[in-house]
């Protein structure tokens, strides 16, 4: 239930809707705030208090619109938004607006993570997940954190709702290959996870013991043409990933020995995508210029037997050229074209380039995986209306790279974006 924060210090801020930064900030120990000398424009409010959920301008149900008018900046007219607003006018004609912002107490999930032997697990990554619009395996990551030296964690500022808690190795803790990413209380997948339902202001405890499940080894050689034959001095190194179907996370940390061998330990049975890439960099120890030069991507079915000798033959990764054209009425300006991973897994950095004056571009060093094409420009409102690879429009579905015999990309750019208020 929402509660009035009468005794709490409230940070309140008002934003000019067209401004980039708060024009006024207030912090009042008793919960009241006053903004004076407002300029004539529209505002949004934000409020923050210890133990309560932040109210920010994005939350339409708490936003309130104020409008000042006239030469006297102290004269304000309040136009009610969806907040609780009233207004009075004093004898001098000055309008005073009164806005009540109801803050909701935050909920808390805390707990302790132990390894399969019961020892505290330090530096494990904790994710507080909830069914939401930004999905990964159907869940949105609401809060991220790490366990402390006692394996403990505490996630505050949560809205009332139903949550799942997941722990994995990304925090850098000592993690054996047979340890699994584990959902509360000890499940290796969402089906076995126990949801936590918490109300506003409630605290829930979620102790998690990391599950240990042995799997099989998948290993082999990386086979690529001799790229040193050109005589240029280059460093190369390899990266390999084994990604479960419908996931965006590498399943196990692989071991790669230079660019010759790889192995994954304790892989569970299932359907996976195996990706490999060889990068080259200059000999300059200051690095940079990392470029994917060979790559491969294939499906693999893993059972309950060790799979040694899974050799991966990498092919040269061709550059991906293309052209940008503009819709009628849009100025032909240089735009930035990039390919970033989304909705899947991709190896290597997102390649990026800027179009030439004639609209042409070449994306180099595109690592294997699923990537989306993005266009951005210095002027606001530039966006891609279609991205065609051959006859196929890949704007929404993306590209599974590498594509053999890929034709140049044809990107059409529009410029008439609307604005959200």
């Amino acid at each position, binding site marked *: 239930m929402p509660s009035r924060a009468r005794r*709490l*210090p409230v*940070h309140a*801020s008002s934003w000019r809707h067209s401004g980039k930064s708060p024009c006024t*900030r207030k*912090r009042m*120990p008793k919960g009241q705030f006053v903004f004076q000398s407002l300029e004539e424009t529209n505002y949004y409010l934000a409020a*923050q208090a*210890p*133990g309560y959920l932040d109210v920010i301008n994005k939350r339409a149900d708490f936003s309130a619109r104020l409008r000042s008018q006239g030469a006297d900046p102290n004269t304000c007219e309040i136009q009610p938004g969806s907040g609780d607003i009233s207004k009075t006018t004093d004898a001098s004609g000055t309008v005073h607006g009164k806005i009540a912002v109801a803050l909701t107490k*935050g909920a*808390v999930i805390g707990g302790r993570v132990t390894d399969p*032997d019961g*020892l*505290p697990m*330090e530096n494990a990554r904790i994710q507080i997940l909830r069914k939401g619009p930004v999905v990964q395996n159907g869940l949105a990551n609401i809060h991220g954190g790490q366990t*402390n*030296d*006692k*394996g403990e964690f*505490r996630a*505050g*500022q949560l809205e009332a709702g139903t949550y799942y808690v997941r722990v994995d190795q990304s925090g850098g803790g*000592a993690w*054996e290959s047979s340890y699994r990413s584990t959902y509360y209380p000890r499940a290796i997948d969402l089906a076995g996870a126990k949801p936590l339902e918490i109300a506003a202001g409630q605290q829930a405890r979620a102790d998690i013991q990391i599950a240990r499940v042995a799997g099989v080894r998948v290993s082999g050689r990386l086979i690529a043409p001799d790229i*040193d034959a050109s005589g*240029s*001095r*280059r*460093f*190369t190194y390899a990266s390999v990933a084994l990604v479960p179907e419908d996931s965006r996370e590498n399943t196990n940390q692989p*071991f790669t*020995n230079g660019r010759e*061998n790889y*192995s994954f330990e304790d892989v569970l049975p299932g359907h996976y995508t195996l990706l490999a890439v060889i990068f080259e960099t200059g*000999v*300059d*120890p*200051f690095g*940079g210029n990392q470029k994917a030069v060979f790559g491969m991507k294939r499906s693999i079915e893993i059972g309950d037997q060790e799979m040694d000798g899974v050799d991966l033959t990498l092919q040269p990764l061709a550059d991906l050229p293309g052209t940008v054209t503009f819709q009628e009425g849009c100025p032909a300006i240089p735009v930035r074209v990039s390919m970033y991973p989304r909705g899947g897994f991709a190896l290597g950095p997102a390649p990026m380039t800027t179009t030439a004056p004639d609209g042409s571009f070449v994306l180099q060093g595109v690592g294997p995986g699923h990537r989306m094409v993005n266009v951005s420009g210095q002027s606001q409102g530039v966006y891609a209306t279609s991205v065609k690879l051959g006859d196929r429009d890949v704007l929404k579905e993306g590209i599974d790279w590498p594509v053999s015999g890929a034709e140049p990309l044809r990107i059409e750019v529009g410029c008439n974006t609307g604005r959200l208020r």
Partner: protein
Amino acid sequence: MKMLLLALLFAAMAAGQTAQGDIVNAATGAPLPGARVSTNGPNGKPVMVKADAGGHFQLPAGTGSMFGLRVSYPGFLPDSRMVQFGQAGMNLRIALAPACVITGTIQDEDGFPVEQANVQAVRYRLQRGKRALGFVGSTQTDDLGHYRLANLPAGRYWVRVNASRLANWDRRYVAQYFPGGLQPDPANRIEVQAGQERGGVDIRMTKHEGVAVTGRVETPSGAVVSTGPYWVELQTEFHGMRESSSVTVSDNTFVIRHVAQGSYIVRAHTGNYPPVAGDLMGQQKLEVGDADEPNLVVQMQQVQPVDIAGTVVMDDGRPAPPLQVGVRGTMGSGVSAQTAEDGSFTLKGLLWGHYDVSVYPVRSADGRVAGPPAGFPRSAKLGEQEVLDTGFDVETTSPGPLHIVMSNRQIKLTGSLTDASGQPAAGISLAFVRDENWTENIGNTDGQGALHAAVRQAGDYHIYVVRNQNSMDDEDYLEQHANDFPVVHVVDGANAPLVLRMPGMQ
């Protein structure tokens, strides 16, 4: 030191030998069952084993003849060390020191908890022989304002809080030290003993009004600002701990409020950071007292790429082999150049900023070093100024030719190390420190307590046991253990074997 350990980690490997040992609590001698021991196995593949119920562990066969070991156990400081086999196998005894913890609560001036504040355990550290403040551990407060600084070595610390989320609402909440104040006070250090959890280190933050610095930026006549508004940043540094605040400037004037007394660098620049050629930048020193600074003028200059020519020579007169000379900027990426046959080089296109000097061997595509070893840089001078440790500044003109002297002189030391009872001390790292607190090198003992070390210069050396990764930059540790071993006088050429005995328990 970490670079040295990493380099040794990938040293020569040999098959057929196994290492085993016991993990114990350094304070009580009790075994630590379940302690994690990790190393690199055959072909460099990571291996992790756990100590059994008696604290005993055994690494799989095929581990190298020299390898890195990392041992950890919850609540204890991890131990990272290089281990070298002797002629026979190896039985290690690794004692983990109980870690220390400092806990407390951060509140604002009204007594309400401060969430998401960054809390640090700060002390003076010795970096390249210089004393500077640095943090040993850091954490964030939770929604109740509680913090827990864990995994600290025993010692004395200041506790510092930087509450940027709170300061975003009220700029007067600047970074503060326990129990209050903007500077670390020697009387307010928190001392923690091994294994101690010290609670109640609470900080009630106060608002500091400070003074206002008002000024304007002046652009050179005819300069065209290519991008966006200016940023003006006020940066101060107290013994290596930096504080800064910045504002955006759209009409060439600026006001920075709530500035504490101290020495500052005022830096103004146009939109790009790090700057690009054509941007405008300006910086100047500013002493802030107890009154407002009403009229500061920062003269801007157009950022131009500059070149620095230089030479590399060996200290024994031989020509230097091919080398890669690089400078890395604190505000941007680095620039490097390969030396010509006569040792000359030119670093091209350095933009405004501070740069550190590095020298690397030139490697072929397979990673092998080309030419004979050149050793390490002993000196790097811009004119008469030594810049190897300090780095140098570049503004709009070349700061002058850079002369680098390389050396590969090393004085090898051998000997033996025993524990307090006279038994060989295996797998111990020793640091050799010259009088000016410069950690010269790390030596290691093998499975039979035989010592192998090398230093770069003749001189008098203090010897310390390297107990953890923080030992050698902790001035308290160096002071307490300065006399654990007699001072060793190292001469050029052959030195007599060292016979060393450790005081007390390892």
